[in-house]
C-alpha cells in the first residue's frame, strides 16, 4: 500500500534557530496522526512545511496525487500546489478568523472552494453549502448570515465545512479546539471524529491537548525542541510513555 503522505527529513531553520529538524514519517489513507508538544516545539512549523505554507530547508513531502501518483509537493510548481490546496488538501486554522472570510456569508464561505474548482451553478452551490452546514450542525437558516454573527464554536465548525466541501483526502489541523470552552470542544471533537470516520479522511492534527489526540488520533508523535522524541500508537504512547519528556507531558495533565 502506498502511503498517502510520505514525509522525509523535513528541516526548517529560522537563522541559527531550529524550527524543526529531520522529521520523517508515513501517513496511510484513513489514518489520523497526532503531533503533540509544548509551545515552541516546532509542531506548527512542521505542519506549515507539509501544507506548503512554508518552504522547508531540506526534505521531501511526497503526496499520492489522484492523477499522477506520488509527487514531491515541495518541488512541484506553485499552481499545482495551490490546486492541491483547494482540492485534495484542507487546512483548519486554530483561529477560525484566519480560515474564513468574515465579510462573506456562511454559504459563500462554504461555496468558495466549489467556485474555485469551476462550479458555476448557483443552485447547486447553495444546495451543497446548505447540506454541509447541516453536517456540521449549523442551522440551515443561518446560510446567509456572516460568520461575525456566529459563536466561536460555530465559526470553527463553519471553517471545517468550508474545508471539507470539496471532499479532500488529507486534512491539516492546527489546534482545531484551541480557544473553545470544554463543552464546545467536546461537541467539535465528536463531530470531527464522525466526519473523519464517515469520509475516510486522513488527517494530521497538531495540538497541545492530549485529550484531542486520545480521541481522534491513531498514531502520535511527540516533539521537543524541533525534534521527534517519541512516536507510536496513541494509546501506547499515552499509557506507557518512554521518553522523559513524554512522561512529563502525560503526567502534566490535570485529573479532574
Amino acid at each position: 500500500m502506498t502511503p498517502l503522505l510520505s514525509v522525509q527529513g523535513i528541516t526548517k531553520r529560522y537563522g541559527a534557530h531550529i524550527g524543526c529538524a529531520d522529521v520523517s514519517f508515513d501517513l496511510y489513507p484513513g489514518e489520523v496522526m497526532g503531533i503533540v508538544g509544548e509551545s515552541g516545539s516546532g509542531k506548527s512549523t512542521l505542519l506549515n512545511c507539509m501544507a506548503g505554507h512554508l518552504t522547508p530547508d531540506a526534505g521531501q513531502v511526497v503526496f499520492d496525487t489522484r492523477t499522477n501518483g506520488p509527487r514531491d509537493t515541495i518541488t512541484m510548481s506553485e499552481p499545482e500546489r495551490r490546486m492541491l490546496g483547494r482540492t485534495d488538501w484542507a487546512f483548519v486554522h486554530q483561529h477560525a478568523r484566519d480560515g474564513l472570510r468574515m465579510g462573506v456569508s456562511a454559504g459563500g464561505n462554504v461555496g468558495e472552494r466549489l467556485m474555485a474548482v469551476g462550479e458555476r451553478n448557483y443552485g447547486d452551490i447553495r444546495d451543497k453549502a446548505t447540506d454541509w452546514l447541516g453536517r456540521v450542525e449549523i442551522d440551515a437558516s443561518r446560510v446567509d448570515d456572516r460568520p461575525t454573527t456566529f459563536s466561536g464554536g460555530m465559526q470553527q465548525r463553519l471553517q471545517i465545512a468550508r474545508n471539507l466541501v470539496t471532499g479532500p483526502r488529507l486534512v491539516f489541523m492546527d489546534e482545531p479546539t484551541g480557544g473553545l470552552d470544554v463543552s464546545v470542544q467536546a461537541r467539535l471533537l465528536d463531530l470531527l471524529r464522525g466526519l473523519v470516520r464517515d469520509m475516510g479522511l486522513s488527517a494530521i492534527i497538531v495540538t497541545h491537548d492530549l485529550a484531542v489526540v486520545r480521541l481522534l488520533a491513531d498514531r502520535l508523535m511527540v516533539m521537543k525542541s524541533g525534534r521527534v522524541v517519541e512516536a507510536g500508537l496513541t494509546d501506547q504512547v499515552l499509557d506507557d510513555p518512554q521518553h522523559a519528556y513524554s512522561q512529563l507531558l502525560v503526567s502534566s495533565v490535570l485529573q479532574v
Partner: protein
Amino acid sequence: MTEYNFAYLDEQTKRMIRRAILKGLAIPGYQVPFASREMPMPYGWGTGGVQVSAAVLTPKDMFKVIDQGADDTTNAVSIRTFFQRTAGVATTTATSDATVIQTRHRIPEEPLHEGQILVYQVPIPEPLRFLEPRESETRKMHSLEEYGLMHVKLYEDISRHGHIATSYAYPVKVEGRYVMDPSPIPKFDNPKLGDMAAIQLFGAGREQRIYALPPYTQVVSLDFEDHPFEASKADHPCGMCGATDSYLDELIIDDAGGRMFVCSDTDYCEARQTAGHKGKDAA
C-alpha cells in the same frame, strides 16, 4: 501653445506611457504598472485617463470627453478645455467625428468604428480588490488564473438580493484569461466591450495601472449558469427623444415625487431630437 509641450506631458513620460499601452494591448486585460505623474487635477478626476489621452493624442486628432455620458458636465468640460489649451487639438461632441474619446463611466450609444480610441478613467483597476486586500495575493491570483473569488462576490449578491445586484463595474473575463474591471460603466454597457471596432484603453492614475482591449477582443461578463448575465436599464423610454434602446438617467424634477428619464448620452439624445424624435417630456 508655447507654454506647454504638446499635450502637457513631456516626451519621455509619453514614451513611458505608450510602452505601457503597447504592453497592455499585447496582453488584453492585464494591468500594466506605469509611473503615473502628478497632474494638475485631483486624483479621482481622471488623472489616469488624461495621461493616456495625452500619450495617444496627435495634433490632427478630434477630441471628445464625456462624463457619465454627458459632454457638458464639469469633468468633461474641464478636461476638454485642458487639451484645447495644452494640445490645441480640435474638439467635438459628436461621437462619430471624434478620433479620441475620453470617457468616465459610459460607452457612447453610437457604435464606435475602426480608427477611434476610447480612453476610460478608472478609479480602482483591480476587480478583486474588495475581496482580497493584499496586492501581492491578487497579483498571484491573476497570474495563476485563480478567479473563484470573483464568483463568491456574485454568489453573495444572489443570496442577499435574489439576483446579481452588481450593476456597474461588472467583472468581465477577457479572451478566456484575465478577469478585468471595466471601470464603473453600467453593466448595460458590458456587451459593447466585446468585439468593439475601436481600441479601448484604461488608465488608473492613483493606482498607477494601464490596461487595454485591442479591437475585436472577446469579452465575457461573469455569471452563473442559472443566473445568467443581464444588461439592465431603467424600463422607460427617454423623456426627451423617446429612445427605448439607450441607457437612462433618472432625474427628480420637483419635490412632489415627479421624475423623468433621459438618455445619459447627451450627444445621442440631441442627435435624435434634431432628427425629429420627441419624447413625452420634451418641451
